[in-house]
């Protein structure tokens, strides 16, 4: 966690309490302060200051009974000082004072979210924050960065490293997004009911992107970035907790957990990729699989409209992962069930990536030729030109069909296009394993 931890090392108990508070309360503290001050920078600085203060005083005074409330009040005081020094309008400071009094009168520090009267008291401040960070008027890359920074509490350097951009670039991206929020009047509010479905979709898209970047790094030496994947799970868990009725959010969390459950099995000791059929399924994280499957069984909430419940795209993807998770071995995989879900997915979006996966699944379910025929069409469309997984998929199906020469040619194409070192090494290994002429 940035900012915390002084020159002297903290006692392990205190350090753990600080880390825990940072994980669980950063977003709440920032979110509450943004609402009250209307100033993102003041809110973040004050929140960071509160954690610094905690690192100084908790070792001496002990961890407070309610660390979240302690941190929020400390951050408020810091923000109040800062606003006063800046000579901000008296009424705003007055509002603060009233709030401080309300808190002082209670028995111990209550949850600030309960104290401050608001037009939408049912909504958690963090939910406002999530929707504002994922507002469609911001460029997608800024939404991702701002969500990680403000909701996730990652510092700019961490986000910059995760996306392989220089830190100043990432800093500019984040501050530009904050400027747009202020100047363009992007509301700090949970959208109205009629807007909610499409805006939730927007939030899920941001979380999905973070998870995907974590699951399969788009470049670099590491195949997976567990920090981002774990971060996406944490943020999606938060969204699910805040919006328990959002089925697609639950499905997205299930999808992330089911994929994350395999992260240890995906990489061998040498850092090389282990494809699904060869993975040691006993190393899959049983807890994450169980949680993912449980989320899926409760995500099937009956729709209010008559007719069969329509599974959303995240649910379909999660169900595909669930089929894998339930198969005790690779050969026991229910490929026709997977094909059915890719069929449904392709109705949602005309995506070449869905088409690619559907072709692979059809090859596994109905024989390599079925998949190769689909892949030939996809290749002819030119929509995946330059994408290494297209020749890699062709190579794999050709290998299964026993066409070693054709497979070798496609492996070489894929190797030339592969974007991460582990993927390249995996493809080279496959090429070397082909039976010779």
């Amino acid at each position, binding site marked *: 966690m940035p900012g915390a931890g002084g020159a002297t090392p903290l006692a392990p108990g205190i350090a753990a309490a600080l880390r825990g508070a940072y994980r669980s309360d950063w977003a709440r503290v920032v979110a509450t302060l943004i609402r009250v001050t209307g100033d993102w920078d003041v809110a973040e600085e004050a929140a960071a200051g509160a954690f610094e203060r905690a690192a100084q005083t908790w070792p001496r005074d002990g961890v407070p009974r309610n660390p979240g409330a302690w941190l929020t009040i400390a951050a408020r005081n810091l923000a109040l000082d800062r606003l006063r020094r800046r000579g901000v309008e008296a009424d705003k400071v007055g509002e603060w004072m009233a709030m401080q009094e309300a808190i002082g009168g209670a028995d111990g520090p209550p949850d600030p979210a309960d104290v401050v009267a608001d037009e939408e008291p049912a909504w958690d401040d963090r939910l406002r924050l999530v929707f504002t960070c994922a507002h*469609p008027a911001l460029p997608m890359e*800024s939404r991702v960065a701002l969500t990680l920074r403000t909701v996730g509490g990652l510092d700019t350097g961490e986000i910059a490293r995760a996306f392989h951009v220089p830190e100043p670039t990432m800093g500019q991206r984040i501050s530009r997004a904050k*400027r*747009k929020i202020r*100047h*363009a009047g992007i*509301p700090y*509010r949970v*959208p109205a009911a009629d*807007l909610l479905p499409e805006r939730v979709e927007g939030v899920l898209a941001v979380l999905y992107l973070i998870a995907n970047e974590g699951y399969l790094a788009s470049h670099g030496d590491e195949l997976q970035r567990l920090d981002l994947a774990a971060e996406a799970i944490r943020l999606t868990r938060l969204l699910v907790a805040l919006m328990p009725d959002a089925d697609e959010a639950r499905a997205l969390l299930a999808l992330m957990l089911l994929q994350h459950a395999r992260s240890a099995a995906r990489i061998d000791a040498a850092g090389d990729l282990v494809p699904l059929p060869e993975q040691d399924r006993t190393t899959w994280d049983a807890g994450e699989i169980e949680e993912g499957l449980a989320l899926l069984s409760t995500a099937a909430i009956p729709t209010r409209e008559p007719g069969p419940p329509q599974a959303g795209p995240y649910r379909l993807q999660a169900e595909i992962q669930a089929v894998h998770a339930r198969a005790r071995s690779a050969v026991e995989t229910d490929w026709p069930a997977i094909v059915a879900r890719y069929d449904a997915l392709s109705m949602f979006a005309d995506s070449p990536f869905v088409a690619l996966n559907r072709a692979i699944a059809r090859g596994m379910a109905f024989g390599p030729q079925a998949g190769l025929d689909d892949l030939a069409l996809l290749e002819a469309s030119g929509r995946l030109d330059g994408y290494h997984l297209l020749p890699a998929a062709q190579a794999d199906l050709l290998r299964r069909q026993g066409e070693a020469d054709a497979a070798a040619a496609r492996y070489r194409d894929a190797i030339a296009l592969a974007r991460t070192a582990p993927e390249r090494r995996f493809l080279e290994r496959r090429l070397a394993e082909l039976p010779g002429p």
Partner: protein
Amino acid sequence: MEYALFYAEGADALPYAPADDNVGEWVDDVEARGVSEYGERLRPAQDATTVRVRGGEVLVVDGPFTESKESIGGFDVIDVRDLDEAIEVASRHPVASFGRVEIRPFVRWPDADPDSRIVPAGFAERPVRGRRYLLLVVVEPGGERAPAGGDRAEDDGPEAWVREMDGRGVRLFGEVLRGPADATFVRRRHDEVLVTDGGFAEAKEWVAGFDLIEVQGGLAEAIEVASKHPMARGGAIELRPLWPFDVHEDHVARTEREAADLGRRLEPAAAVAAAGSER
């Protein structure tokens, strides 16, 4: 919060279908809700006149500052709660269904009277006393000074020009817009509202503000007024005559009637008008 809405075709425009044009309903709705300050249609791009001053010389050309698909076809000034309400208002405008609406916030000056509005109260009732042009202030490369950002008043900012034109009764209202990074595009396709970030980094030229002017001397006077604006040196000034129409009339009939003038410049040739202004 006040916003300018600019209507344009945009790169992915669909053909205009006059039978689907419900702009009358839209106007009735925004007026009933009290969110509309003022709005007008503009004469098409061929009636635009672009004025630049380089090396002390006034350069006037027929046509808009940018290629026609991006060229502004009309505008509104609205006063709404926040960007979400602006998006909602913009998304229901008929242009959103075939072209795109650009939402631009105005620069909010720290010393501004919080009750003041971009469009003066009662403006809609003010009788028209001359020829009205929308004067678009354009930032573009090649200007003779640093382009004006949205944030700061410049030493050679437009204050003197505003004072002069207000004094002459030429300038009716106007304001500086925040830069393209704070813009938002709204389109409606297949009944879905598409919201995108309007600030593309590669934009080299953009509208940085506008004024509505009213002149007695036609295009010649409008050119003279534009040439005095400091941004005629720093960038370009585009003059667009207003093109009022009855929003409640039958748009199929209107479109047929107007078809005769389509593609024809009704304004005097810029060179002729400019020569007139020097006389």
